[in-house]
């Protein structure tokens, strides 16, 4: 299975950088996410997770380093976390780390809402 890499695009900062490593299972989303038609961007990411963790039963460590995401993107992030929840229920190893900026007063509620919706535990780590 191939790695999934999307480099940061300075002229289009509304797309996050993507680095999904099939060898280590370490998957990162970095930057901001508020592109139009978010499902077009996220569908390959969701499919990658389905294959990697639901079909191949490989472990995943998801590091979310998103400093901003709009409500469209949050809908797709929820789908991503739902896939990981299914994988965890199937007995696979799943770890989710949410890196956040300490001056963001809304992020803790956002993460808590994702935890409530998915039943996953998400570790919050301040960005350096």
């Amino acid at each position: 299975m191939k790695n999934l890499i999307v480099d940061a695009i300075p002229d289009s900062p509304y797309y996050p950088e993507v680095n999904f490593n099939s060898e280590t299972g370490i998957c990162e989303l970095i930057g901001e996410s508020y592109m139009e038609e978010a499902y077009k961007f996220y569908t390959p990411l969701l499919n990658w997770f389905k294959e990697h963790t639901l079909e191949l039963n490989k472990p995943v460590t998801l590091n979310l380093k998103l400093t901003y995401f709009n409500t469209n993107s949050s809908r797709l992030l929820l789908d991503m976390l739902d896939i990981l929840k299914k994988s965890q229920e199937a007995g696979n190893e799943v770890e989710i780390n949410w890196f956040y900026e300490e001056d963001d007063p809304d992020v803790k509620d956002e993460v808590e809402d994702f935890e409530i919706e998915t039943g996953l535990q998400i570790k919050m780590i301040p960005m350096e």
Partner: protein
Amino acid sequence: MIMIYIEHPEENIICYHGPININLVSFTSNYIKKHIVADASVVGKIYKVFIELTQNVSYYSAKQYSKLRAFGSGIGWFRVDEKKDHFAITTGNVILKEHGPILKKNCAEINSLGESELRKLKRVTRSQVGIRDIGAHIGLIQMGLITGNPLNLNIESQNENYSFFTITAKVNKR
């Protein structure tokens, strides 16, 4: 013709009317982030509210600028003003007349709920919407959560088919 009347020009930080697409939203939101002088958490809230509201115009304005792109170039306006104790982010766009009562109902519901109830409504709404078009409702709920203030909307009839919709979200300075 749409006129934007700036009552207090000294309070206006930015004002624009025309097609609103993703690149304009991105450029302008980053301009705002760099140029507004306020606490970082306040600037962050303005940034989030501005993107969400302007993207609603981009996607859902009934008047799209088709020469620019087929999707996501809704025509409308936005303005950001600094008041004594808050920042006001306002957008305006044409909507289909039948959408007016739905928007009024949604905003009235959002304004009537406390934080925990709003978060519950957001979770329920988010889990029910499709991935292709999640609609403006969840974005408005998010505006209520981020600002902690009521949303102020106005809908004026233009003709038998269209109305003009304006919405203001206020971000407190403290």
